[in-house]
């Protein structure tokens, strides 16, 4: 029994060291860079100190800092700290839809798709509208996602390894830390159980 106690004490010690390691491995508190603009909260790295651009190079001083461009857009907690879809919808930005055809109009599709097979997580609501203001149909269909409902089978593992939704989400579009942005429909909110559901608005 004593050896057991010793073992448990030893394991506890190791666990504590583990906790300490985790605490120490966190990046040291960075000094907040001075805001570039009056409203700029200084939450974006400057080009000079982003550990990516070479401060010694001639280009680093000529490039625009993210804070100068992003501070006035609708804010988020992760990613670029910008809610990009809202930035267009609310008229903050009007990115060009084409460089080949000045009259090109984005084909916006207002169709929500619910993915129901999400285990114990809330179901996933995919809003076509937020995606089609940025992308055209061919960017996702039919090579990555089939249009037929239920025809594309993938799981969170695929997404986390950069396939399907993970092609953009987790790299350029909002990060995969935001579980409930996608997993937004609770099962009990829907009156009757659904199979793969498409909601036409």
């Amino acid at each position: 029994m004593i050896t057991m106690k010793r073992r448990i004490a030893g394991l506890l010690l190791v666990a504590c060291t583990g906790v300490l390691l985790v605490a120490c491995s966190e990046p040291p508190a960075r000094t907040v860079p001075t805001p570039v603009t009056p409203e700029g909260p200084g939450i974006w790295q400057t080009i000079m100190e982003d550990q990516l651009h070479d401060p010694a190079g001639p280009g680093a001083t000529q490039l625009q800092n993210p804070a100068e461009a992003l501070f006035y857009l609708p804010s988020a907690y992760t990613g670029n700290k910008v809610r990009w879809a809202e930035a267009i919808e609310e008229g903050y930005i009007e990115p060009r839809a084409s460089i080949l055809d000045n009259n090109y109009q984005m084909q916006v599709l207002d169709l929500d798709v619910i993915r129901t097979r999400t285990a114990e997580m809330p179901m996933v609501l995919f809003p076509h509208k937020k995606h089609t203001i940025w992308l055209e149909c061919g960017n996702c269909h039919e090579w990555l996602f089939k249009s037929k409902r239920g025809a594309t089978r993938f799981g969170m593992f695929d997404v986390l390894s950069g396939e399907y939704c993970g092609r953009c989400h987790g790299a350029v579009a909002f990060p995969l830390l935001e579980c409930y942005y996608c997993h937004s429909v609770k099962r009990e909110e829907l009156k009757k159980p659904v199979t793969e559901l498409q909601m036409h608005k």
Partner: protein
Amino acid sequence: MTPACLNTHNRHPARCFLQGSMLVLALFVLLAPLPAAAEYGDVVLNKRAEKAGMRPVIFPHWFHRIRFRCRVCHTEVGFEMRAGSNNILMADIIEGRFCGMCHNNKIAWGPQNCQLCHSGLPGLESGVRGGPSTGGPGKW
């Protein structure tokens, strides 16, 4: 020492709990994200740049998506949505393909401004930066 949870002769709840929690801790240490430098979605292109004696190229997604929708580059220009899958030669750009479709002194500044793209720290590896949360688009 054999793990207690796998050893059917020596199954003790406290030890199981401890070893489980240690496993979880170890996973946390392994999966702890690297300190996020760079802006989210920045792409480093260094397949050829440094071998050719230039600084690596830094492509800022945030800067471009204020001005262009995704489809412009990922349909009209033809960039595949996977870091590393686009073979971009400087000759292509000068002849008006890839970056050169806009960076031609008409829509955006032209390819004579070497330092504006080739602005990265020497030795950077190619891939998506700024704290990506998938192993995917960043992998080559």
